[in-house]
């Protein structure tokens, strides 16, 4: 019977835990049970005791003698002790447990009928409609764009009104000036035959393609260009994009997502940075051209993957063949060895190297002796040596076909205007070797190398300026930094603007000054950007160097 009761108590304590099981709830239930059971039991006891007292009333109770006390105790014990009517056993034997059970059932029913009440996590009340309106009224946003006051204003862009060989005509200037600010390396953009071919295409196809590639925006000229690119690079397939900055920025997200790893050189340009941001992959930067740092980062990643026992993910190393923000080259041979050892995929942005480096003009990969297919993804802009607009990517069919479905800049953008595709094809045809292995493009590339060497040789010696990468580099991108920085980037930038202005006004040479967006993760030091092109003759190079020398002397002294 006692067990019976314990069983009920157990029921009591367990039944609410079935409804809701917080500690405070247990306490409440136990309290409720006691509050109901204790008065019931005590009422029963008192009733029994008074009945017993009444039946013994002829025997007067004398509390003042010892025997009296003993008698009273005995009488009390008769009632309360074992066998007595007030002993719990007697109570239980005479169906008293039914009473307790009944009471407990009542408690359970009572609890079951209660709403389970929730403990509010946040003590705060939600905002009322009035408060929300008030908050809306109080909110004052920042202006859409920050004020430009106090910021160094870049000079107005020079407006070009006409071309003549390496010279351009500028608005507001009568004399032509030498243009070393265009990366028109092989002079394809002004090539006569190229222009005629483009104009014919405009006349038959119109200018725009009026649709994305998927929706009747694929024109036979695009297919021709893709095939020529694949043949030129000796890869399975090629894909073209309609803008240079959108090329890499859409290729990277196609090959990486949250689970994947991208490692890129800290000096990579903005399209690579934004591609990595958009992909949401785990990103790490290695020190510029530092192979030990690259190995260290890869090993860190490998150790982390192993420790967490993660499944194999896509891993990518991204570098530029020629870094557009610095003009130097990636050490592709060693990078390829590292990539091969750790089974990473390698992606090379060949924008400035394509049509410039390598025996056949395939770019930095060829320059470093890498064979077609060794580098998984090669991407490049068509707006430098090709003299057109747009970008392309070559690789295995799998790599390329994947981009046709996942490259957002390819799927969701109108395709390249057909005449620009034709202009790109024209340049590829020039590079294609004939039976003896020669091609007009090869001669142009040799000439370009001559110009690069001449420019680099003469520019490295200008006092006050420092040519990044030195004279021996075959890169046609020349960044000239200040030899002695003032320590303040804004002041240096202003000096650069003044030098460029001086060079234009007094020397008749148009040079670019690098300018970086606030979105860049790291701003390279201010520099003058000079591109070597085949159009520049020896005479023009001398003028450029002379003008720069004079400008630096005048500006830095003043």
């Amino acid at each position, binding site marked *: 019977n006692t067990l019976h009761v314990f069983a009920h108590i157990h029921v009591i304590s367990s039944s609410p835990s079935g409804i809701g099981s917080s500690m405070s709830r247990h306490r409440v239930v136990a309290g409720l049970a006691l509050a109901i059971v204790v008065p019931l039991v005590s009422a029963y006891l008192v009733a029994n005791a008074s009945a017993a007292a009444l039946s013994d009333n002829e025997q007067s109770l004398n509390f003042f003698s010892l025997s009296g006390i003993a008698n009273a105790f005995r009488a009390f014990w008769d009632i309360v002790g074992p066998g007595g009517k007030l002993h719990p056993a007697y109570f239980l034997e005479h169906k008293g447990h039914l009473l307790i059970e009944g009471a407990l059932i009542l408690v359970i029913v009572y609890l079951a009928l209660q709403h389970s009440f929730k403990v509010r996590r946040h003590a705060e009340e939600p*905002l009322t409609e009035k*408060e*929300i309106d008030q908050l809306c009224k109080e*909110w*004052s*946003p920042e202006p*859409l*764009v*920050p004020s*430009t006051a106090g*910021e160094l204003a*870049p000079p107005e*862009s*020079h*407006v*070009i009104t006409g071309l003549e060989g390496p010279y*351009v005509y500028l*608005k507001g200037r009568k004399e032509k000036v030498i243009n070393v600010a*265009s990366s*028109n390396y092989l002079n394809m*953009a*002004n090539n006569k035959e190229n*222009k005629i071919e483009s104009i014919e295409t405009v006349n*038959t*196809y*119109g*200018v*725009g*393609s*009026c*649709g994305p590639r998927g929706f*009747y*925006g694929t*024109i*036979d000229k695009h*297919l021709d260009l893709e095939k020529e690119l694949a043949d030129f690079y000796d890869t399975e397939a090629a894909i073209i994009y*309609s803008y240079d*900055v*959108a090329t890499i920025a*859409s290729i990277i997200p196609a*090959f990486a997502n949250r689970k994947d790893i991208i490692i890129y050189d800290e000096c990579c340009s903005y399209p690579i940075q*934004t591609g990595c*941001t*958009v992909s949401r992959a785990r990103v790490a930067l290695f020190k510029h051209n530092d192979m030990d740092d690259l190995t260290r980062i890869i090993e860190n990643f490998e150790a982390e993957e192993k420790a967490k026992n993660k499944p*194999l993910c*896509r891993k990518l190393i991204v570098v530029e063949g020629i870094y557009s923000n610095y003009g130097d080259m990636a050490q592709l041979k060693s990078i390829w060895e590292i990539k091969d050892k750790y089974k990473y995929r390698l992606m090379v942005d060949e924008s400035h190297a394509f049509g410039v480096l390598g025996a056949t003009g395939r770019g930095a990969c060829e320059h470093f002796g890498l064979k077609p297919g060794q580098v998984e993804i090669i991407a490049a802009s068509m*707006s430098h040596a090709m*003299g057109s*607009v747009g970008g392309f990517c070559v690789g295995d069919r799998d790599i390329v*076909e994947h981009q*046709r479905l996942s490259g*957002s*800049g390819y799927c*969701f*953008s*109108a395709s390249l205007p057909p*005449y620009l595709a034709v*202009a790109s094809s024209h340049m590829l045809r020039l590079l294609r070797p004939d039976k003896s292995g020669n091609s007009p493009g090869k001669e142009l590339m040799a000439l370009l190398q001559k110009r690069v060497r001449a420019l680099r040789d003469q520019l490295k010696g200008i006092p006050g300026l420092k040519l990044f990468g030195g004279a021996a580099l075959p890169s046609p991108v020349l960044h000239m930094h200040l030899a002695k920085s003032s320590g303040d980037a804004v002041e240096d930038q202003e000096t650069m603007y003044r030098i460029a202005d001086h060079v234009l006004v007094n020397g008749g040479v148009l040079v*670019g000054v690098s300018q970086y*967006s606030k979105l860049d993760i790291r701003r390279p030091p201010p520099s003058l950007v000079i591109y070597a092109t085949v159009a520049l003759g020896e005479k023009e190079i001398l003028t450029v160097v002379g003008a720069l020398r004079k400008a630096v002397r005048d500006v830095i002294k003043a």
Partner: protein
Amino acid sequence: MSSGDTIAPPFFSILSALFILSAASIFGKIRDVIYFLLHPFKVKGRTGYAPIRDPTEDFYMRRMYGRIVDCWNRPICSAPTAWVDVMKRERARDTNGIDIAHIVPTGGHIRCLNLSSYNYLGFAAFDPYCTPRAVGAIENLGISSCSPRIHAGTTSVHVELEELVARFLGVEDAITYGMGFATNSSTIPALVGKGCLVISDALNHSSIVAGIRASSAKVKVFRHNDADHLEKLLKLAIAEGQPRSHRPWKKILVIVEGVYSMEGETCRLKEIVEVAKKYRAYTYLDEAHSIGALGSTGRGCCEHWGVNPRDVDIMMGTFTKSFGSCGGYIAGKREVVEHLRRHSPAHLYACSMAPGCVEQVTSALHVMMGMDGTDRGKQKIDQLHDNANYVRSRLLTMGLDVLGSWDSPVMPIMTYNAAKMVAFSRLTLARKLAMVVVGFPATPVLLTRTRICISASHTREDLDWAIEQMEEVVDLCMLRYRTKALYQLVESELKHHVKRHFGPEHVERATIKALATGELDLRRLKDQSAKAVEGGIGVGGNAQQQQQQQQQQQPQSTSAKPKRAAANSKAQLEGKGPATSPRNGDTHRKPLASVQAHAKAFVVSK
């Protein structure tokens, strides 16, 4: 409510669609098993490298998309004008089970009616005014500048185009980029960043999504075209502030599109701009499909709804569609454009727009603004609206579920079933119609559709012929769903459209049937009301403002370009300047009444 909300695929078509999809996937799995049993040692991909696609996606691409790959990427070998030469293709021999199906041209082509290119105003092919100018620019300034705008990429045509775009839109300044996608994806990060909130329409284009992801701003999505939901989100966002830190947002940017490319719907710009203004959020309007195509003079969504373009903070648009070129622009207040000139990556690092493309846009804008000395621009836009409304009404009376708004040249026809979509695409091509079909993942699985884009270069005969061909295909594919709610909504929208543009006296007879049979000729109504306006009724603020502005800027361009001066002044004399339609004035006088009427029309339609 938008037309997309009224449709619901019929039960049987849901059932059949799911059946088809599961059958395709089961058979695909069986084929995979058989393939790997037959080639037990063939391992896909290289060992040690993770596969390029994840297995589910890979299966979908190979076994589902691979079967219907011929419906997309159809190459053409002519200008994308009213009729195109679609190249014949066939499945390549080397297509196996583990690569995506490869499909190659076999030579030869079919001449098809082009119902798919975004050639809204018909500037895609050779144009007697535009093409010689584009050719001239290539001759003078080269094929490409090979340089970003800040170095040597700014040419005289770029400067001219930016001035012209700003003038065309009636804003202070504009900046142009070489690609529409990059315009969005590089401008948004330059405007918003950490601590900023972007509220984006649910159906916004992928380039906007890319731009938001490239910025580190937080994003919330409001229900498509639902200004009430936008208000709710804005209120909550401002009240609660940034997540976790609860600091107030630095700024909030609301991004909407003028015409949604997969829905054909125009944005409820007026309501959305009002809500955004009320809560001091900035608005970003992407007019990729609406610039040139909407509004009585082609000035886009603002003109269509009578919204002052200066109330929209950032006007973005592309030159790919209506103007038959490539590239995009951002227009707005001078300081905004100035900020972008300093910080937008596509301005600083990307090669500038090719001079030929620039000149194509400039000359197309000249035609649209009547600066070429003819009324060709006006004819084009009238023809486009006439074509679009005619085809829409014909398709609706055929019993098809056609989404979208009146005047919008984009009209999706719902097929609800992937198999029907594919059948429709193949059957129409066999009948010499080049049409676009869209399915998963671009749309939800059950909302597959086929899309028509109307051009001003289509003649009435072309369109009648196309509809005749489609009648047969529609019967074969059983596409006449006749969703009543959709039809009623579209008809009430038509009545509202007619009332707003041509006055309440025509509302009675404005039915879809009347439009389809030609009893109601909107083009004639437009001409009549234009005449009435010229006859002396005053023109409201918006149009006048624009005209004044044009007059102010006229002398500048005259001095710069003596050749065009004659054409300009001639156009001015003939009154071919912007907007002389009555509704600009009407809506400007009582903007509130117009909104109320609009709201009422939608409530009634429910």
